[in-house]
């Protein structure tokens, strides 16, 4: 490959566009008559997608179709729960749960004879009907894609594929036609707020940095997605790494920076590999490095791998970590826009924010500001997980009600005998939104008012088998363990809160414990140095706000209403509720249950290991 000019970029785009037109349903413009796009994201790879991909290529060869049918491995498709998944074009047919043994049939029947294999289609959980086309599946149909624009549409390891989708054109425009002030103005006009969690206006942040004096400035990407339950950044890096690179070069021009880093978690090896490949390819094409596309602008980009510390997602801690030190936050001001990495002016945005930038430059800030609500512009990607049918990545316009996400896109709660209880948003810094607030629109202010935060977008649906005290304990355990230890309220306070929550879950709660939790929360919020401590008590406060009775049941009645806390369970069968179905007997891993047909089950407590398998499998809540 040689370095390319802006004209050559457009030539590559036109050439690749013809091949890719098939994926928009247009036939006859490219070399192949059919494209098979198989997902190769982490979720699908864990489900065996690599073997399926290899089998597919071998079978296409074997049946003599390699000239007509192209097999492409894409990044994360977002519909992880049914992986490995594959989309075929030009029809747009969506296959789920593929296995190696299905491949000869798919190739023979679909690719050769034009008859898709129905048994491998997506089956709607409520109507039990097969839905063949991807765009008709509610999970996909109700989404609006900006940050995930290229998901499952291109080979993430090919720069040409990205260019074919219009990639690097925004960068070319920014470098050639726009002044730094123009770029900042466009981003400000878009109303984009940082998608990492705090929601600070992106354009304003850039403007501060642009105006900071200094020869050397840095552009950073926060890919240290540590929030448990969030995986949009991983997904974007795996599926569309060039979008992040392109966004960062545009910002570099805006602030006058010539060096950037992507700080990525070592827990995401696939994302690191694909990003590295993207950077290497961009360098080969001259889209990174010296004199980018002959415009005279220089920008170097490197990856810096994290070493497993949640607090390094905090901006000042992240910068300390890149400097090779313990990742501890420092007080602000001075803000990083003035004194950041190695004390130079620095801007840091997260992966999802970066992925929005090229389109804002290409289509204009007004276009972006036309989507979403007054206070929250554009779209937001949520990682929908937990007790919900359609688990995966969901991108919707800001302001979409939670109910739409959980029920229409997510398909509701999987277990028929369970009820929706709450949605946890924002990870350890966030909170729970209960059932009666499920119509809350997803925008910064409304979510905050309901007691949670937008955060990075982790959205965990919980049914009534989840104990809210245990959930609070879980998050406090997380915060306590991940506290860097620099400031006392966070280090000691969260530990004390965890001890109390553990005591309550163990059935040893005492009167006054709940009040102590509240006092500690207030102090920690007030006195902590960084966001980790300031927001750490949020899961406790929000569960106390909506589920105080559950705390009281633990402390005063020594019961766990959700039947989750082992220490408060007796492992006995309620004879009135038992329907004698034997599900507990069939699922017990240690044969601790006596049951015969038409008889009430009995649990042998000497053998019982208190694993709760019986409770999870009892549809009648008969074990307590």
């Amino acid at each position, binding site marked *: 490959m040689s370095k390319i000019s802006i004209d050559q970029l457009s030539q590559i785009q036109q050439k690749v566009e013809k091949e890719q037109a098939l994926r928009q349903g247009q036939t006859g413009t490219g070399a192949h008559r059919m494209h098979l796009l198989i997902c190769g994201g*982490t*979720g699908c*790879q*864990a*489900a065996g997608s690599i073997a399926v991909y290899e089998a597919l290529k071998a079978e296409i060869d074997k049946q003599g179709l390699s000239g007509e049918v192209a097999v492409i491995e894409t990044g994360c498709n977002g*519909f*992880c*729960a049914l*992986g490995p998944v594959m989309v075929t074009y030009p029809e747009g047919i969506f296959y789920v749960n593929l296995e190696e043994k299905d491949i000869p049939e798919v190739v023979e029947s679909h690719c050769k004879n034009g008859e898709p294999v129905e048994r491998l289609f997506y089956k709607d959980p409520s109507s039990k009907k097969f839905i063949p086309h991807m765009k008709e599946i509610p999970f996909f149909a109700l989404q609006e894609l900006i940050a995930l624009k290229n998901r499952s549409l291109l080979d993430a390891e090919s720069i040409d594929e990205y260019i074919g989708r219009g990639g690097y054109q925004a960068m070319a425009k920014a470098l050639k036609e726009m002044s730094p002030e123009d770029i900042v103005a466009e981003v400000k006009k878009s109303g984009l707020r940082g998608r990492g969690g705090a929601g600070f206006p992106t354009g304003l942040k850039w403007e501060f940095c642009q105006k900071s004096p200094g020869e050397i400035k840095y552009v950073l990407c926060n890919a240290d*997605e*540590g*929030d*448990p*339950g*969030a*995986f949009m*950044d*991983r*997904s974007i890096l795996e599926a569309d790494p060039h979008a992040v690179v392109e966004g960062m070069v545009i910002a570099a021009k805006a602030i006058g920076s010539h060096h950037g880093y992507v700080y990525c978690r*070592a*827990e*995401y*090896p696939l994302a690191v590999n694909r990003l590295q490949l993207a950077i290497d390819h961009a360098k080969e094409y001259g889209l990174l490095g010296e004199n980018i596309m002959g415009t005279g602008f220089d920008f170097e980009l490197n990856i*810096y*791998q*994290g*070493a*497993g*510390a*949640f607090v390094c997602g905090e901006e000042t801690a992240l910068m300390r*970590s*890149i*400097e*090779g*030190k*313990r*990742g501890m936050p420092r007080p602000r001001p001075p803000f990083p826009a003035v004194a950041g990495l*190695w004390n130079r002016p620095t801007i840091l945005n997260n992966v999802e924010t970066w992925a929005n930038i090229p389109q804002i430059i290409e289509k204009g800030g007004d276009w972006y500001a036309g989507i979403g609500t007054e206070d929250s512009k554009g779209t937001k990607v949520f*990682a929908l*997980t*937990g*007790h919900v049918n359609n*688990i*995966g990545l969901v991108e919707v316009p800001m302001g979409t009600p939670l109910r739409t996400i959980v029920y229409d896109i997510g398909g509701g709660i999987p277990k028929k005998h369970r009820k929706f209880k709450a949605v946890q948003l924002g*990870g350890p810094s966030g909170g729970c939104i209960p059932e009666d607030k499920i119509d809350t629109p997803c925008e910064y202010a409304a979510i905050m008012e309901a007691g949670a935060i937008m955060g990075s977008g*982790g959205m*965990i649906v*919980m049914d009534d088998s*989840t104990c809210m005290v245990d*959930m609070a304990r*879980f*998050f406090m355990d*997380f915060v306590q363990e*991940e506290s*860097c230890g620099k400031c006392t309220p966070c280090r000691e306070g969260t530990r004390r809160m965890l001890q109390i929550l553990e005591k309550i879950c163990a059935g040893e709660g005492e009167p006054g414990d709940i009040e102590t939790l509240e006092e500690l929360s207030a102090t920690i919020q007030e006195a902590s140095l960084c966001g980790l401590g300031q927001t750490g008590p949020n899961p406790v406060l929000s569960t106390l706000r909506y589920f105080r009775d559950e705390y009281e049941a633990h402390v005063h009645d020594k019961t766990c209403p959700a039947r989750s806390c082992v220490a408060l369970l007796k492992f006995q069968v309620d004879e009135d509720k038992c329907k004698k179905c034997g599900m507990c007997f069939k699922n017990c*891993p240690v044969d601790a249950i006596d049951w015969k047909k038409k008889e009430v089950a009995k649990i042998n407590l000497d053998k019982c*290991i208190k*694993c*709760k*398998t019986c409770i999870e499998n009892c549809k009648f809540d008969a074990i307590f």
Partner: protein
Amino acid sequence: MSLAYDLTPQEMPEDVTPEMVERIDEICAAYRGKPGALIPVLQKCQEVVGYLPVPVQEHIAKALGVPGHEVYGVTTFYSFFSMEPRGRHVVRVCMGTACYVRGGKEALDRLERHLNTPVDTTTEDRRFTLEQVRCLGACGVAPVVVVNQDTHRKVMADAVVDLVEQYD
């Protein structure tokens, strides 16, 4: 894990071979003087040795020309670094929220009982190191267990014992 930093120079443990030390020297030489080098150096050296005992840290400190306490400070801060020898297979159970609510905790409990070793320790025969990890980002297929580099999805408590037993 040793709680205090022993200031007397220590000998290399037996399992750190001269070839390993040579490799460490090469790594340090490549990074010496570069800003922000310490963490990547420690990552690479841990790959070579398997863990970072204090004598190895002292060696790195000298080779990079940074104070020993700085190396020790970084090693103890980040969860990826270990000062204890590790097992042949590292079993990491994801304790992210999605995995937790879908049964990751039960899988971890079962493993602790089966391997007879608490989380964050290594079995006596050094076959397994059992760890918990904070969210691997594979929430769509929760609960997730990673053995070495292999990600296993939807690993319920009942299946986890069979899963690890596949690894000698």
